[in-house]
């Protein structure tokens, strides 16, 4: 297993209090890595560290052996993309224009729009199924469509690695599954994905590499089929549960035990 993206003993936090201390994480190449854990476990903080949104106080994030911070911002942006938790669509922007903005790191003052940009945007819109929405205003789209457009923008960036910060949070169950299937397709087509997710069962179904965190540290990581057990879920979430095999996908399915059933 090779890992071109990894965190080398990083300490991350806001102000003086570290949320994560000396954490090591190797993201396997071509994996769909999903980070789970309770609220305030540091999973989003870790993702922000990977995304250059938070500077590590010690340690470093390495990409292809280089420290991410030593790369020029645009160079880093050509290698590592991010779907932020919340972005702002400018008023009156069309889908094609918004997706086109994902090309910024590939452009320069002299080359503001090349055929490579045209191709990347066309392919990103096709992959996310928003080609027919091309001329529509982003403001007019439904939540699910809008999230697909943001994914298309991140894809147009054409990075080997793509970070996803709680990408399904504000969507209904049908759009959540729709989006997770899209990510699985992107993973199959060769993008290494790192996502922070709240839904343990979605993580278990789609992740090829699962990372469970608690209190700023990694409790367990590996193939979800091997690591998800009732003991692990209890250790991470303090949640009594039983784990069965998902009859649809064959992956682990976590069923919480409420007080009424025990």
């Amino acid at each position, binding site marked *: 297993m090779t890992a071109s993206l990894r965190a080398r003993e990083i300490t991350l936090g806001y102000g003086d209090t570290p949320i994560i201390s000396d954490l090591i994480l190797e993201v396997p190449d071509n994996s769909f890595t999903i980070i789970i854990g309770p609220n305030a476990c540091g999973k989003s903080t870790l993702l922000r560290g990977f995304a250059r949104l938070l500077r590590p106080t010690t340690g470093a994030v390495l990409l292809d052996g280089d420290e991410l911070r030593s790369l020029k911002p645009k160079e880093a942006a050509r290698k590592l993309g991010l779907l932020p938790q919340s972005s702002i669509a400018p008023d009156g922007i069309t889908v094609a224009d918004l997706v086109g903005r994902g090309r*910024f790191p590939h452009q320069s003052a002299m080359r503001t729009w090349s055929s490579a940009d045209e*191709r990347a945007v066309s392919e990103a819109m096709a992959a996310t199924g928003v*080609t027919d929405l091309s001329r529509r205003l982003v403001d007019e789209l439904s939540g699910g469509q809008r999230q697909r457009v943001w994914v298309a923008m991140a894809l147009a960036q054409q990075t080997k690695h793509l970070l996803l910060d709680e990408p399904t949070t504000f969507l209904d169950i049908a759009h959540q599954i729709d989006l997770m299937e899209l990510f699985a397709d992107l993973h199959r087509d060769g993008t290494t994905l790192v996502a922070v997710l709240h839904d343990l069962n979605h993580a278990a179904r789609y992740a090829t590499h699962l990372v469970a965190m608690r209190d700023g540290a990694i409790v367990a990581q590996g193939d979800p089929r091997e690591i998800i057990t009732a003991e692990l879920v209890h250790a991470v979430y303090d949640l009594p549960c039983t784990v069965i095999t998902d009859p649809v996908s064959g992956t682990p399915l976590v069923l919480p035990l409420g007080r009424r059933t025990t």
Partner: protein
Amino acid sequence: MSIDQKPTTASSATAPSGGFTPVDHGRRLFRIETARISALIPVRSVVVSIVLVVVIVGAGLFSVTLGAYEVDFAAVLRAIFDPASDPDIRQVVFEWRLPRVLFAVLCGAALALAGGIFQSLTRNPLGSPDIIGFGIGAQFGVTLVMIVFELNTYMFKAAGALVGGLFTAVLVYVLANKNMMSSFRLIIVGIGVSAGLGSLTSWILISVSVEKAMMAATWGAGSIASLGFDQLIPAAIVFAIVTLLSLPLARTLPVLEMGDDAATALGIRPGRTRLAAMVFGVALVALVTAAAGPISFIALAAPQISQRLTRSNTPMGTVPVMLTGAALVVVSDAVAQLVAVPVGVVTVSVGGLYLAWLLATQYARRT
């Protein structure tokens, strides 16, 4: 893989439609693609720019015919293109009237660009330097330099305007709790700060001699009537430098409009970009204020008018935005001459109506 149905195989490497469906951009575009330069330019922006140039030249020539000394249209054209024409008319046109028109173009372009920068930065059509106090700050700086330090050359006034504008920017920034992105808060704080600086300016004016106060008040109405080439040249040099430095912002600011996280992911440093935008935006306002006094509402209205004319998705831009501002000031100045008032009075009157409309529509959208 290829969806392209054409059986031809001889497609050049730069053909935009080779092997994939072209993006439906929803508008007509000029495509430029060579080995070193490539761009996509909306046809609409080009047409709008050409029309604006025609308006600027037409209103500018008309403006040159206005004044105490009778010069008709044909005489103006002869004076400009024929060096052997009547030297008196040439003197009137070149030394008295042309600098005024060129100043109008320069002031309009600079203010429009400054407005585009700040409106994009605050993501709000109200976030223009007129409203958030930087214009008043620059005015305060110039008043201080002119009246208290008695320095009345362009470069000293420009320095005063720049320092005053930047000081106001820092003050607003700190009072708005360093949260430049919460544009509503920024605008409210800016309005408060400009009211304070406005009254400080008034206080300086009433505490000095009548002659000094009159001089400052004439300048303070916003006029380009008495400006000559000796002031145009330094202003034009400063304008050219600041505009060139601001050009990269036309690509980075629209990306920053999507939020700091998205912008960082795309390879922009939000803090650095915002700082550059603030400094260059204030500098553009300062260079105009130093020369002509406050010409209000151009920075507010021009980016919005340009955005609607070109159907752009950002108030920030380059050529069409600057041409819109130039056209507004050249036309306003021609009107100002016809009714014999300073150009600042015309822009304030027209701009006030626009501001009322803007507030009404913004309010309607908010509720």
